[in-house]
């Protein structure tokens, strides 16, 4: 087969030959067109030509016939190009027709289409294929070639356009110019896309391609002025509809809509431009407006910022600062924004104008960018200045307020301190104070003075602050000055008063000291003097007890000595009283009001005077008393002597008698009866001597009444004499009694005189101390010498017998009793038993009737009642035990 190379090369656009060749490969020149395609092309191309030819008022019926003479062809070209072709030849001859066709073909070629293998003769001859090919070439060149969609042109461009426009329709997928269009939805979609009012796309059904196609064809013809160039049935029934036909019909849609679009675009452009213009104008107006506003605002604000009226208080200043802050925070930012906006607007405007080729915007007089900039600068300058000023002012006010407060504080403190000081300093408390109190006041005053000094610099500080307030022009400075003045005046006054007080206190102190010294002097002298006086009073009233003349005489001499000291004492007294007077004089002359109580002494001058008078009084009293006593002592002495004289006689006499009596009892000259006689003589003498004793007693009584307790003239006291006398009496009596008992004993025990003398001699021998009685040891020695070998127990027994009272002395009588008993005691009891035995007829018991018969009734009854019943062997009823009875009589029973 012949490889058709119908490469149509366009001058202004170059295609990839390959692409185009691919498309054209389907067309085989030599072969008949696919009959279906031929049919479709014929219909479509005819309709297309007619759509243009009707503007020239003509139509074609048969595409291969009606173009044979070339006239309608030339007409068609003129219509579709809008250009005049060369005048056609009006002949009917073949060569006329060929010439006309050639004119048409030349025109086509002059439009840049290389018509290869299409000749005029074939057209004149009515070659369908050629004719269709030529028409297709024309369609391609004039309807399709100029299509440009997104830099894609011609067929691809058209395809792209279709794809873009049908993109929203999901059931449409345009990939080619044949089968994609079979279901008719693509056409409908295209229509709906541009004129949704013409078609209700949602009602369309993919399965009704015929309906869809017919609908589209119908609408296109009626509303879009696109004749029906396709046959719906043909399209549906052909498996692959003719591409060119489809392309041709679709290109009509493109031109219809794109045209509208162009118009729209053009309108848009105009609108845009107009809009831009309007916008620009609005922006300019806006700019003018904002600029005016801003400038106005700046104009208003700057004076406010330049206002430098100072405020009085920090609070109001702070309020201003607050306002400024508000301005900065709230009022200015929007303005800044406005300015910014202005600038932006201006720039934008300028840019827009520049872009839209309009002259630059020139703001009106005074609203130029520079004006605004400079105004703004002024504003900011003013702001800065204002802020600075505000801060300075605030600082200043702060300082002022601080100072003022400080002043107030210090002043208050000082005033409160100084408040009562005036009163204190004017007190006259020292006038009635004691020395210690005045001294205390002086100390307090010293402390006050240093306190005052300490406050000096505080006052200076206050003054300094006041000064500063003046310099800094404090608004309430007058009041401050007044107060400061008051403080200073008071301060000076206090200074003066302090000084005065000091002087007064010191003066008073001096005086009180002097007085105090005097008091001390007084005390120092008055106390001992007082003691002396009291001592003297005591002594002068002293109760004395004297017993001798010497004693009283010494007292008298002491008294005389005392009297000698009186004048000296008197002068001391006067001196002391003088001191007191001195004190009073001083206190009166200096008007010192204080109680003149001597702190060092409780002794008063009146007391001293009183005592002194008393002393003076007592002295003669004492004299008298002493003299009286002296007389008494003398008399006592006399009594003593008297007594002594007597006692010294009586005493020895008694002594002598005692010795004589003792001697006589110890001596064993003569019988006991002789001794008794002698003793009786003694007794008689003694009794006759009694009156002497009585007399002595009388003297003694006198002595006692005179309260004489001693007597150096005799060693014998009354008691001595008395005792001695009584002892004498008792001795003589006892001695006599002893002799009597000895006589009795001798008679009772049948002791001979020689025995008696023996006993006496032993006794005397062992009476070592010659007291008339043996001591225990003496007795023991005696017994031992007599051959009694005694154990302690036995000796003790014997001691109880001889000394039943435990006196430790064995008398001669006891001694004799013991000596005689030992040898005779058992006999005595035995004798009685023996006597009873005789009466009982040798029985060991005795009967009551026997007793009655032998003894007097009374004694018999005594025995009967006391004798125990006999319980021994051979007892009879009524038998009485006389043995135990007898031994019992002597306190001894054998059991």
């Amino acid at each position, binding site marked *: 087969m012949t490889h058709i190379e119908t490469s149509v090369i366009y001058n202004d656009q170059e295609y990839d030959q390959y692409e185009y060749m691919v498309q054209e490969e389907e067309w085989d020149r030599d072969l008949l067109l696919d009959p279906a395609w031929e049919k479709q092309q014929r219909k479509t191309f005819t309709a297309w030509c007619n759509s243009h030819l009707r503007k020239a008022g003509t139509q074609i019926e048969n595409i291969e016939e009606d173009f044979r003479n070339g006239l309608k062809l030339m007409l068609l070209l003129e219509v579709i190009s809008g250009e005049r072709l060369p005048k056609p030849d009006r002949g009917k001859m073949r060569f006329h027709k060929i010439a006309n066709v050639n004119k048409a073909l030349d025109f086509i070629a002059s439009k840049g289409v290389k018509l290869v293998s299409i000749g005029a003769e074939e057209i004149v001859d009515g070659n369908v294929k050629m004719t269709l090919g030529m028409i297709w070439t024309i369609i391609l060149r004039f309807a399709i070639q100029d299509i440009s969609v997104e830099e894609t042109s011609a067929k691809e461009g058209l395809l792209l356009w279709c794809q873009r426009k049908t993109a929203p329709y999901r059931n449409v997928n345009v990939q080619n110019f044949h089968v994609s269009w079979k279901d008719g939805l693509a056409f409908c979609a295209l229509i709906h896309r541009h004129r949704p009012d013409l078609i209700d796309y949602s009602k369309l059904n993919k399965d009704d391609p015929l309906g869809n196609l017919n609908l589209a064809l119908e609408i296109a013809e009626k509303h879009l002025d696109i004749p029906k160039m396709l046959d719906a049935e043909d399209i549906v029934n052909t498996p692959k509809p003719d591409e060119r036909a489809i392309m041709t019909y679709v290109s009509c849609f493109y031109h219809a809509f794109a045209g509208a679009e162009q118009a729209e675009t053009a309108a848009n452009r105009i609108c845009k431009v107009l809009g831009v213009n309007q916008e620009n104008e609005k922006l300019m107006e806006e700019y003018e407006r904002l600029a005016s506003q801003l400038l106005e605002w700046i104009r208003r604000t700057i004076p406010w910022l330049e206002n430098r009226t100072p405020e009085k208080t920090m609070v109001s200043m702070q309020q201003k600062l607050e306002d400024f802050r508000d301005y900065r925070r709230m009022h200015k930012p929007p303005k800044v924004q406005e300015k910014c906006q202005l600038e932006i607007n201006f720039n934008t405007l300028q840019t827009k104008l520049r872009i839209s080729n309009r002259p630059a915007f020139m703001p009106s007089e005074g609203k130029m960018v520079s004006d605004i900039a400079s105004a703004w600068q002024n504003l900011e300058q003013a702001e800065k200045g204002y802020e600075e000023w505000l801060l300075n002012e605030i600082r200043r006010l702060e300082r002022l307020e601080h100072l003022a407060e400080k002043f107030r504080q210090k002043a208050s403190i000082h005033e409160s301190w100084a408040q009562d000081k005036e009163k204190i300093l004017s007190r006259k408390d020292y006038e009635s104070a004691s020395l210690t109190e005045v001294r205390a006041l002086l100390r307090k005053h010293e402390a006050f003075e240093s306190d005052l000094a300490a406050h000096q610099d505080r006052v200076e500080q206050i003054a300094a602050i006041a000064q500063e307030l003046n310099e800094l022009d404090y608004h309430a400075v007058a009041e401050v000055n007044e107060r400061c003045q008051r403080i200073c005046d008071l301060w000076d006054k206090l200074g003066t008063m302090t000084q005065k007080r000091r002087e007064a206190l010191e003066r008073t102190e001096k005086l009180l000291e002097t007085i105090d010294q005097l008091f001390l002097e007084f005390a120092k002298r008055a106390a001992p003097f007082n003691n002396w006086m009291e001592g003297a009073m005591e002594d002068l009233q002293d109760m004395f007890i004297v017993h001798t003349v010497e004693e009283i005489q010494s007292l008298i001499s002491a008294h005389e000595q005392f009297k000698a000291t009186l004048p000296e004492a008197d002068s001391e007294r006067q001196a002391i009283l003088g001191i007191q007077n001195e004190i009073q004089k001083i206190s009166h002359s200096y008007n010192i009001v204080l109680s003149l109580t001597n702190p060092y002494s409780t002794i008063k001058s009146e007391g001293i005077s009183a005592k002194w008078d008393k002393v003076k009084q007592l002295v003669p009293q004492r004299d008298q008393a002493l003299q009286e006593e002296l007389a008494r002592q003398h008399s006592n002495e006399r009594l003593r002597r008297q007594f002594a004289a007597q006692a010294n006689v009586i005493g020895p006499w008694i002594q002598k008698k005692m010795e004589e009596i003792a001697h006589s009892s110890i001596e064993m000259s003569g019988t006991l009866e002789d001794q008794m006689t002698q003793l009786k003589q003694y007794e008689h003498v003694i009794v006759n001597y009694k009156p002497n004793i009585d007399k002595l007693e009388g003297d003694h009584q006198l002595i006692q009444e005179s309260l004489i307790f001693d007597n150096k003239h005799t060693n014998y006291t009354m008691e001595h004499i008395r005792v001695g006398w009584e002892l004498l009496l008792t001795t003589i009596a006892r001695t006599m009694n002893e002799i009597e008992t000895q006589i009795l004993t001798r008679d009772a025990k049948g002791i001979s005189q020689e025995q008696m003398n023996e006993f006496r001699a032993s006794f005397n021998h062992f009476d070592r101390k010659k007291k008339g009685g043996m001591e225990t040891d003496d007795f023991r020695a005696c017994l031992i010498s007599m051959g009694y070998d005694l154990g302690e127990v036995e000796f*003790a027994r014997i001691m109880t017998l001889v000394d039943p009272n435990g006196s430790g002395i064995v008398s001669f009588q006891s001694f004799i009793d013991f000596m005689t008993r030992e040898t005779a005691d058992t006999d005595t009891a035995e004798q009685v038993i023996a006597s009873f035995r005789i009466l009982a007829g040798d029985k060991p018991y005795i009967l009551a009737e026997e007793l009655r018969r032998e003894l007097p009734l009374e004694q018999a009854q005594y025995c009967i009642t006391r004798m125990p019943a006999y319980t021994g062997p051979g007892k009879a009823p009524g038998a009485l035990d006389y043995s135990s009875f007898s031994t019992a009589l002597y306190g*001894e*029973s054998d059991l």
Partner: protein
Amino acid sequence: MDLYSVTLEGPAPWGFRLQGGKDFNMPLTVSRLTPGGKAAQQNVGVGDWVVSIDGVNAEGLTHVEAQNKIKACTDRLSLTLSR
């Protein structure tokens, strides 16, 4: 002063001599002992005081009362003495 007690088995004689009594103002004492007698066998001592007879306090008894008390004890004699 040692107190001691003896119990002499009867019958009498007990083998001692009683001396003293309240009526004699002398304490009841043993003034003599029969050598080998019942009292001597029981180591009663001469000079010992009789404190109680048959449990009865002997202080304050007269000689006859004491004697009778001792005589009343036939089978047995209990004495408390002190040496």
